[in-house]
């Protein structure tokens, strides 16, 4: 790392004939704040241009080509998109599955997180312990835990169907059943909702106590208080969690990849799996680039729609 403009001392011996009292343009530049700003930012800028914006543009170009990733790409105009929207039997179904997964996961996960946060936002003895337990699976996650869940979902040897049998329910085959595989993935995702809960807890602590006390004085029951005071007050936080949840779960990949390989009978073949297989299994790299751009644009459009919808529903304090 070169030292940026650290030489405040005017000792920089002027090799140019310019007098020391009038610094050259280069010296002025070197000392300027802007120069330092961009010097500090250089590593990030290199990454932005070389490993983010550059690749994005390249993948946009690749989306309009037929390309196997090895030979040179061949420009085919909008053909990839025509195939995608028109004749590819995997596109629309995988899209539908992904939206089903994301919708259910976000709706149930945000509701669960909010419920847990509301309960933990009291002076309940032991709440720190519960917070730890609920937050743990958010941090300690990934492939190892998916493998554990796959065993828990095992219809014969797993713990879940055993527990169900104890209350007189004959459990489904979970990951082996076309109807139950996706709900199983959603069920598992609910334990990863601790981060959302933490954000809700932080939001709930910003709800002025006076408002709730006033509601209590007015004789409002807890449900009415929750609907009329708490929810409006934390609506920006709810919006944030819904949006972040949607963005993350529309990209789901590792869970089905590890637990079901997209099966049985493609019932968990989500968009991420589809994209991955096209790119790294079938070497349709051009087509997969087009798919990746569609995924990106869907997320951008969805974000925009959610924010627009929210403009009328979300209450910001003091605005």
């Amino acid at each position: 790392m070169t030292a940026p403009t650290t030489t405040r001392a005017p000792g920089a011996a002027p090799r140019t004939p310019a007098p020391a009292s009038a610094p050259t343009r280069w010296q002025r530049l070197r000392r300027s704040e802007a120069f330092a700003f961009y010097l500090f930012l250089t590593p990030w800028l290199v990454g932005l241009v070389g490993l983010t914006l550059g690749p994005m543009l390249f993948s946009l170009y690749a989306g309009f080509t037929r390309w196997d990733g090895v030979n040179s790409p061949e420009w085919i105009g909008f053909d990839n998109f025509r195939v995608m929207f028109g004749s590819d039997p995997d596109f629309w179904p995988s899209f539908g599955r992904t939206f089903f997964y994301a919708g259910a996961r976000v709706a149930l996960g945000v509701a669960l997180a909010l419920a847990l946060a509301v309960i933990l936002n009291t002076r309940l003895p032991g709440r720190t312990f519960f917070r730890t337990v609920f937050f743990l699976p958010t941090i300690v996650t990934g492939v190892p835990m998916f493998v554990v869940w796959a065993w828990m979902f095992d219809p014969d040897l797993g713990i879940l169907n055993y527990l169900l049998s104890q209350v007189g329910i004959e459990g489904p085959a979970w990951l082996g059943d076309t109807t139950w595989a996706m709900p199983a993935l959603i069920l598992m995702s609910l334990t990863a909702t601790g981060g959302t809960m933490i954000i809700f807890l932080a939001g709930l602590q910003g709800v002025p106590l006076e408002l709730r006390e006033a509601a209590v004085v007015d004789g409002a029951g807890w449900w009415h208080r929750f609907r009329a005071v708490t929810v409006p007050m934390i609506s920006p936080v709810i919006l944030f969690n819904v949006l972040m949840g949607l963005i993350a779960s529309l990209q789901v990949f590792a869970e089905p990849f590890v637990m079901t390989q997209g099966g049985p009978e493609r019932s968990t073949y989500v968009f991420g799996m589809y994209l991955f297989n096209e790119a790294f299994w079938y070497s349709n790299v051009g087509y997969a680039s087009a798919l990746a751009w569609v995924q990106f644009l869907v997320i951008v459009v969805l974000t925009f729609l959610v924010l627009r919808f929210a403009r009328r529903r979300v209450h910001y304090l003091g605005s």
Partner: protein
Amino acid sequence: MTSTAPERGPRGAAPLRLTLTRGRVALVPLYVPLVIAAFFFALPFAWMLTGAFKAPSEITHYPPTFLPERLNADNFTQAADDVSLWRYLGNSLLVAVVSTVGTVLCASLAAFAFAYLRARGSRVMFGLVLATMMLPPFILLIPSYSIYQWLGWLDTYLPLTVPHFLGVGGAFYIFLLRQFFLGIPREIFEAARIDGAGRLRQYATIALPLAKPALITVALFQFVASWNDFFGPLIFLTDSSKFTLPVGIRFFQGLYATDYGNLMAATTVSVVPVLLLFLVAQRFFVQGIATTGGKG
């Protein structure tokens, strides 16, 4: 991010005496959902830890047992024989530590610039930081693969570490550190400048030491993210001796799909380091996550 203890007295915590004047008995209904939820949140960890010590006959036994009949470590030695478990552990550690160092360096430099240095275009740059937070990894991974192929970096750890020195995927960390830096009074830096300290000295000797809690938060998040990362190693590594734990376990699962005892031993090896890290440093994780929502 200051070191106030939020546990002690949350400002907005509902005072129970208002709602529950009839005494503590009224608390019981609140515990019922909490205990049920906690059971399901903790179950996978209990199931994994106990499974790792169960003998094969016990694994396939019905009804399932909760605690292993006797503790045997055979699964661990067996798992280490089947795949290079300890090697994967070392690989994971190497990749996670190096990428954490890179992230902390790059993010703190950028955050320092955003917090203290004025320049034309700085707002646009910060906008770009926030915009990259929304990028799905797929859109970058396919072209990045070609770039690394061209550079000859495939099947090395370079694609898993070098980008972190260049801030790729680190937008959240830049944001978090900038928020923290903005909380440090400017006068401290003014004083240092009068004493003749250059900007790099101010960054290294004033900003970094003061930002220690935020830096720890960033380091913890990146370490865990790198440790849990599956997609990167899956795509960039092919030689099985170079695998990190997540791909190693996936590989193992492919070989011995239903050998649950050994699989649980392998997952335990992978999970316990992060589990301990979480238990020791939970407050940093909580504060880091709570900061994300703050801007919402």
